[in-house]
């Protein structure tokens, strides 16, 4: 579809675990992209995208200095590193998954790509 883009067009990511909680950092390629994701990539967007993980709460933190948004997905790892029944026990793949999230295409997309 031409009116949406995968988030990975304008951002990269990294994810991992803190006990049974996952963190998913989404980092824009530049300031224009950060301004856009700050407005459009919200607790609701990310929480809904990952709703099958069963997080008890989703929280967003801003790190404007590195054009990053850090999402905490509490209790989202089905037990965490030692107890999870999933192959991705530590949420390492969540960062790649979130880059596939379809977002409305920004009007000035060319200013945000790498």
């Amino acid at each position, binding site marked *: 579809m031409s009116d949406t883009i995968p988030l*990975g067009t304008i951002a*990269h*990511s*990294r994810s*991992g*675990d*803190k*006990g*049974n*909680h996952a*963190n998913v*950092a989404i*980092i824009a*390629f530049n300031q224009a992209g950060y301004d856009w994701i700050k407005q459009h990539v919200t607790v609701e967007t990310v929480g809904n*995208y*990952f*709703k*099958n*993980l069963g997080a008890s709460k989703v929280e967003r*933190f*801003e*790190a*404007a*200095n*590195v*054009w*990053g948004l*850090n999402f*905490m997905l509490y*209790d989202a790892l*089905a*037990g*965490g*590193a*030692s*107890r999870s*029944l*999933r*192959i*991705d026990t530590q949420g390492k*793949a*969540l960062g*790649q*998954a979130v880059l*596939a999230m379809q977002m409305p295409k920004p009007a000035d997309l060319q200013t945000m790509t790498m």
Partner: protein
Amino acid sequence: MRSSLRIGNGCGFWGDNVDAPIELARDGQLDYLTLEYLAELTMSILALLKQRDPTAGYAHDFLGVLKRLVPTLKAQPQLKITTNAGGMNPSACGKQARAILDQAGLNQYKVGIVTGDDLFPRLDELLAAGHPLTNLDTGEPLSKVRDKIVSANAYLGSQPIVEALQAGANIVITGRVADACLTVGPAVHEFGWKWNDWAKLSSATVAGHLIECGAQATGGLWELWDSTPDFANVGYPIADFTPNGDFVITKPKNSGGAVNRQTVAAQLLYEVNNPAAYYTPDVVSDFTSIAVNDLGQDRVQITNAQGQPAPEKLKVSIAYRDGFMSNGTLAIYGGNAAEKARKAGLVLLDRLKRAGFTYARTNIETIGAGSVVPLSPGGRGSGGEGEISEVLLRVTVHDQNKAAVERFTKEFAPLVTAGPPGTTGYTTGRPSVKEVFAYWPALIDRSAVQGKVAWE
């Protein structure tokens, strides 16, 4: 005072690249080599090893690394090492390190041992003294799991590491310390910072955090994986400090990988909660305060770190026994592979139920059909299962009853003849049964924990 300080991390976790510390020490022009071995639950495994053998319970990979480092230590006598390889038994680790050094003729090397993190022998005393060690996530009282606990360790700060370095240690072996302290300790010692130089402590904490996972700062997991130079020869990270705490992240010349704004930004936010308040025993570091300046040529400069006073409480990591787990896999090939795999998984669990075995928790995954990240229907990889011609079936169970989990491991092989067509890949034998240790995070008053230094 020295004008610069180069600290490199050659190990990000127990199981990391065993050549990395040797190459980094050889090529990195380092003042300090740090080696980080302890993940959240590593201590529980080490605690059990120590129960069986009082001379075990540390990350023994370190000893192999130390043997291989001997020529480098002889060529670079100023090089020092800080490591948490001591795990649950820093003094036993130190004794072995001592023997290796003596055998190599490095008798003059002083090995400092940091202890005081192990709260397990003191648990009842601490509970009686009014330290509840309540679960930080759930609010539950420790009494709920008291009789199942196998380890309890406070995260020590940098002070005992600095004490050991001031007394002349060449190698400092610790148990549980906050990971960044392996970097913060040397910086405080070499630059003579004070314990209330919050901005400097914060900067060194950022550096320690950036390098603690090894190659993750130097091109590992980078989004541009297909254009990362010489990926197989990835260089491990170095923090090159100036006395005011500012530093440059880099890697050895002629190594592979990459250090740039993206690799550093991604690692800055890795396994972080609120980046404006990263808690360690030394300082509350504000990762959002730093300025990141990509200098090019695999050099990224970090300046302007700000920090708040150290927290009153220390984090405690407790592990307790939580039953048994096992998982097994089979490859499923042909049309409707994902559906066939799911069916095979259900058949397996149904057979166990008929044999009298049920499980507290079970999970069936169809790897290749969207199971690695279970997104909602319509998410990537979860639609059009009928089109997928091969998946890996993975079934996992968890229960307190070990016999039930053992029986589970015997149910994969029969599916090779009794399952859906296209079932294959049973070549690795029966899955193993693992004892499960659950994680219980807590806090404790700083005054209840004393880091100590001993010598080997």
